[in-house]
């Protein structure tokens, strides 16, 4: 006699078949059968009960980014599903693999405006890599198999499966087959050797070659191949925001962080190099500044696994549709062993100018007050650049990207493309579940923290150990900076009145401390890091610190400003 499996049980069995060990979610009416089935998996699958479904998506993103696995989210229909939208959009633009499973009303009620019915498949279509609605129990395993395959392969992204309640209650004979191919989907490009040879010729002839890397390096696990390539070719490497960590920042060939608030040298040299090699990055507008004046002097080699990224923003002289790992392996064989010491010295000279200028201007402006960047520098030093650092969005995010010395891969978790305030706290929770042995530090502004602070409840209940640093400048700092620079200091609704964060943390049984003076900063950071369990450190920082360097809107990368 074969025993029948319900749709809800089939969901759980399918997740087990995909080696899922952690789920972030929130129960509700339409997903109750699945939660009922989950109850029997308490020993094998960890379910983290978040406080809001948006938190579940960000936590799953954090988990995916540190573990390299696919993040899994459960949510109910209607508001549960719509609360996933921000996280899905964030994961989509930042190429993070997620499988989100939402409950849906009974299939007979679809389109009737039933209680908690919403067209989540329609809503999430533009912000998922793929989505589907399952109304028949027998379709559940195949849909889940397809979802995991799509989420993780090629350029990763979020996937949503909406399962009607009757499909969850229905019965079937369970059989699971992993998805390994879809005829309309070719995630793995064939390596074009001729193009790589063309690229190698350009690189070998180059006097001032320059390499830009993005998250694609980490997504294809090409960190070692990158290191081999860079050390052989002697090309200086700069990173996008999401690429930070893919190449050790203490390496002598590391040239810095790119973009609007990136390093002085890293930006300027983009418009001076003769060959620009971009791997696993997509020339975001925050990286390029004015595209019509971006690297016009250079031959551009662009390697990406997503064919649609080639020639999307910057026309490539050699566009290579390839997996970064495979391309780098072959490219390393093809390039000559070289050193570019004069070229490298130019980077170092500019770095010196940057450090001196910035130091001078901030010292003058904020003598006594703690500045955000000194907190970051100190944290980087104490943790040796080896912690997993999760940032929110804004000034603190840019300063962390600039001053935290990322030396470990998959250690930089932030909301890049979407710029989602409120990302860091839930993402840090997920990041810790994805990398339980690592120290996970969330660095958050006073504004962003208040967007998802309900997740302190998740920390309390799941007993996760994360360190939270709130850099409190009593402002929505980045917007304020723009108001200062471009809107005649008309600080329209950017001042922030915040609650007592220490009392708030304590209400959730999370140890906390407030730092107001420089003298107590280091010991407080150490206290936080050495504390067993989660800890919240609120650092009162200068109110009107600005982030420099800066490429203002419409300016070219070579016009990066130091003040």
């Amino acid at each position, binding site marked *: 006699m074969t025993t029948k499996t319900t749709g809800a049980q089939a969901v759980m069995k399918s997740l087990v078949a995909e080696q899922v060990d952690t789920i972030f979610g929130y129960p509700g009416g339409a997903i109750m059968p699945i939660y009922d089935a989950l109850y029997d998996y308490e020993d094998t699958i960890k379910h983290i009960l978040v406080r809001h479904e948006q938190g579940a998506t960000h936590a799953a993103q954090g988990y995916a980014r540190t573990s390299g696995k696919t993040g899994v989210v459960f949510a109910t229909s209607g508001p549960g599903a719509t609360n996933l939208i921000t996280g899905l959009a964030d994961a989509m633009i930042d190429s993070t693999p997620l499988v989100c499973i939402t409950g849906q009303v009974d299939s007979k009620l679809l389109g009737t405006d039933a209680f908690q019915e919403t067209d989540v*498949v*329609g809503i999430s*279509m*533009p912000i998922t*890599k*793929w989505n*589907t*609605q399952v109304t028949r129990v027998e379709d559940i395993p195949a849909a889940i198999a397809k979802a995991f395959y*799509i989420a993780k392969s090629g350029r990763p992204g979020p996937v949503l499966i909406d399962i009607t309640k009757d499909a969850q209650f229905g019965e079937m004979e369970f059989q699971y087959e992993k998805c390994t191919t*879809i*005829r*309309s*989907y070719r995630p793995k490009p064939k390596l074009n050797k001729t193009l790589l040879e063309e690229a190698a010729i350009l690189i070998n002839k180059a006097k001032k070659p320059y390499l830009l890397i993005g998250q694609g390096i980490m997504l294809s696990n090409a960190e070692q191949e990158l290191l081999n390539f860079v050390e052989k070719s002697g090309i200086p490497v700069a990173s996008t925001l999401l690429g930070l960590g893919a190449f050790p920042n203490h390496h002598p060939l590391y040239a810095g962080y790119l973009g609007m608030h990136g390093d002085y040298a890293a930006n300027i040299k983009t418009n001076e190099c003769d060959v620009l090699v971009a791997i696993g990055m997509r020339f975001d507008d925050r990286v390029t500044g004015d595209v019509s004046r971006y690297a016009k002097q250079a031959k551009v080699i662009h390697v990406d696994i*997503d*064919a*649609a990224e080639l*020639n*999307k923003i910057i026309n490539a002289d050699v566009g290579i549709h390839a997996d970064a790992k495979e391309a780098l392996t072959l490219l390393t064989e093809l390039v000559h062993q070289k050193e570019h010491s004069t070229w490298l010295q130019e980077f170092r000279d500019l770095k010196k100018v940057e450090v001196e200028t910035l130091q001078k201007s901030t010292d003058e402006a904020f003598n006594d007050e703690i500045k955000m960047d000194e907190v970051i520098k100190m944290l980087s030093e104490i943790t040796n650049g080896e912690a997993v650092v999760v940032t929110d969005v804004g000034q603190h995010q840019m300063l962390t990207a600039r001053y935290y010395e990322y030396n470990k891969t998959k250690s930089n978790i932030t909301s890049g493309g979407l710029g989602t305030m409120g990302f860091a706290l839930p993402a840090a929770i997920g990041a810790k579940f994805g990398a339980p042995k690592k120290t996970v530090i969330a660095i958050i502004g006073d504004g962003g923290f208040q967007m998802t602070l309900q997740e302190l409840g998740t920390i309390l209940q799941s007993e996760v150990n994360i360190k939270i640093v709130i850099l409190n400048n009593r402002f929505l700092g980045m917007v304020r900076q723009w108001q200062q620079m471009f809107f005649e200091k008309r600080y329209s609704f950017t001042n922030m009145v915040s609650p007592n964060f220490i009392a708030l943390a304590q209400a959730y049984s999370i140890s906390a401390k407030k730092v107001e003076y420089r003298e107590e900063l280091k010991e407080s950071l150490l206290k936080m890091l050495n504390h067993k369990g989660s800890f919240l450190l609120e650092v009162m920082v200068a109110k009107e610190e600005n982030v420099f360097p800066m490429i203002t809107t419409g300016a070219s990368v070579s016009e990066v400003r130091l003040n």
Partner: protein
Amino acid sequence: MKKTYTVSVFTENSIGMMNRVTIIFTRRHLNIDSITASESEVPGVFRYTIVLRTTKAQIEKVIGQLEKVIDVIKAFVHEENDIVHQEIALYKIRTETLTNGDVEKVIRKHHARVLTVDSQFMVIEKTGHVEETQLLFEKLRPYGVLEFARSGRVAVTKPMKELSAYLEEI
């Protein structure tokens, strides 16, 4: 410079496919002039023919984005000279207007054909380019057109190689 482009998209037959295809255009603020969709010569594979005016740079990016859609098998873009295209238009007019000899002349001149004649009305069919079906409409309008319906463009490419090769793979 903006030009008219014809996009052919081959997709799986899944629910919501039309939406997945059109949101690519919506997001880029591109207005679709006409769209037709139906099963292709390969069972289960649908063919969309989309006509719009845009720039070459934009349409090439759109093709890239269309091909990223999981259930899209392949997308192509063609300029006007690369394709043979046609539309079909149906015109319903009162049967009694035929007693006026002019209507017959109009039908003849435009190589239209009469599909059906009822005691009350008749249906005329004209296939051709949009300008041609439009012209016939203008000519018939003085006699009273009760109903007018026009399909979107369907098109086949002049160099057939790439298309057929791709469909054979499926």
